[in-house]
């Protein structure tokens, strides 16, 4: 009896395998880098203009994180050097007249923006004031002109043997939002059976927003070759106390693959179904 059952089971299994008209397979889809960095051997993550929350040193943390990621996940040699306090440099450039080839930061408001950054470097501008504390995105935008300061980046490039320079702005700020959220809760029906149902409840939530702008500069010429802005947010229950640094890493974690795909080809693993 047992032998007969086993025989039937084996026959059934054989039939099932024989009749299967599909086959799952793992694929690795290559995604080309957005930027051709073949002319660079080295990368210098120099520093960022950071604003928003003061609980996290977004300049230092972003440089550290990007250098680590590039070291392991790109073909470029990462230059290890001190992190530049870019905000202070921009403030100083805005105050001082041009010296040693370092052009001042051109004014943001008022006069029309120069046609090119090279022109900006050629024509010394009047000193301007930048907000010393970067509280909102508008304050941060005022600093954007430092990336057009070709002479400054070119000089920096020469110091480090013409690498690809990675810089930009990082805005990390607390966030509070209220609204309806879906929540799963346990209910017991009139028959006494436990069940779960989704209910919409109004909730106050808090969290963080991270908005980095990565600027890629050619160290040989000092010109911007590419820039990219990302936005990530995370929200928690009002009662939940999440340290800002944890939230910062959680948000950076989400956008790192997109940052890396700018510089190096990536392979995305997945499964597909082959048919017969």
């Amino acid at each position, binding site marked *: 009896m047992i032998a007969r059952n086993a025989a039937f089971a084996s026959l059934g299994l054989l039939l099932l395998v024989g009749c299967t*008209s*599909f*086959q799952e*397979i793992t*694929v*690795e*889809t*290559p*995604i*080309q880098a*957005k930027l051709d960095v073949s002319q660079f051997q080295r990368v210098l993550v120099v520093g960022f203009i950071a604003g928003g929350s003061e609980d996290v040193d977004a300049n230092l943390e972003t440089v550290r994180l990007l250098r680590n990621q590039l070291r392991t996940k790109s073909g470029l040699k990462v230059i290890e050097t001190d992190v530049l306090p870019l905000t202070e440099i921009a403030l100083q450039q805005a105050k001082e007249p041009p010296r040693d080839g370092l052009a001042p930061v051109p004014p943001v408001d008022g006069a029309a923006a120069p046609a090119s950054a090279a022109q900006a470097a050629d024509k010394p501008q009047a000193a301007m004031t930048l907000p010393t504390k970067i509280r909102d995105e508008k304050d941060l935008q005022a600093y954007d002109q430092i990336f057009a300061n070709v002479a400054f980046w070119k000089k920096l490039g020469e110091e480090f043997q013409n690498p690809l320079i990675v810089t930009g702005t990082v805005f990390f700020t607390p966030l509070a939002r209220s609204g309806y959220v879906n929540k799963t809760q346990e209910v017991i029906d009139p028959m006494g059976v436990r069940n779960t149902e989704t209910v919409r409840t109004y909730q106050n939530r808090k969290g963080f927003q991270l908005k980095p702008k990565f600027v890629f500069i050619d160290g040989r010429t000092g010109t911007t070759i*590419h*820039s*990219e*802005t*990302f936005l990530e947010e995370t929200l928690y229950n009002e009662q939940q106390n999440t340290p800002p640094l944890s939230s910062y890493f959680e948000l950076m974690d989400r956008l790192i693959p*997109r940052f890396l*795909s*700018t510089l190096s080809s990536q392979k*995305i693993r*997945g499964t*597909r*179904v*082959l*048919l*017969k």
Partner: protein
Amino acid sequence: MRRTLLALGIFVFLAAAFPASAADARSKAKAEVEFGISVAQRGLWREAIFRWKKAVEIDPSYAAAWNNLAIAYEQQGQFESARDAYEKALKLDPNNNFIHQNYDFFKEINDRAKRGVR
């Protein structure tokens, strides 16, 4: 009378021959598809592309072959060819959930590749 019989004879011959040749084409294409699957499983995707291309040449109405060809193109990073092949597969077999699922995954990756440049 003879002419009618001749015409009838030709008709009967064609009716018998065509389904047979269609079935023959499908079985030849199926053999290519199966061989393609076996090589793809060993990571020989170029050979798989060659086989599945042959299959769709033999039988252009074979949705499974187009689906497999699309997957192989995707694996090779040839996104435009993959999209064309998926669309052909879906046109031939619009109710096939496997093809829909493959195509959805493909679109998600393709979007990710294009996203982010601002």
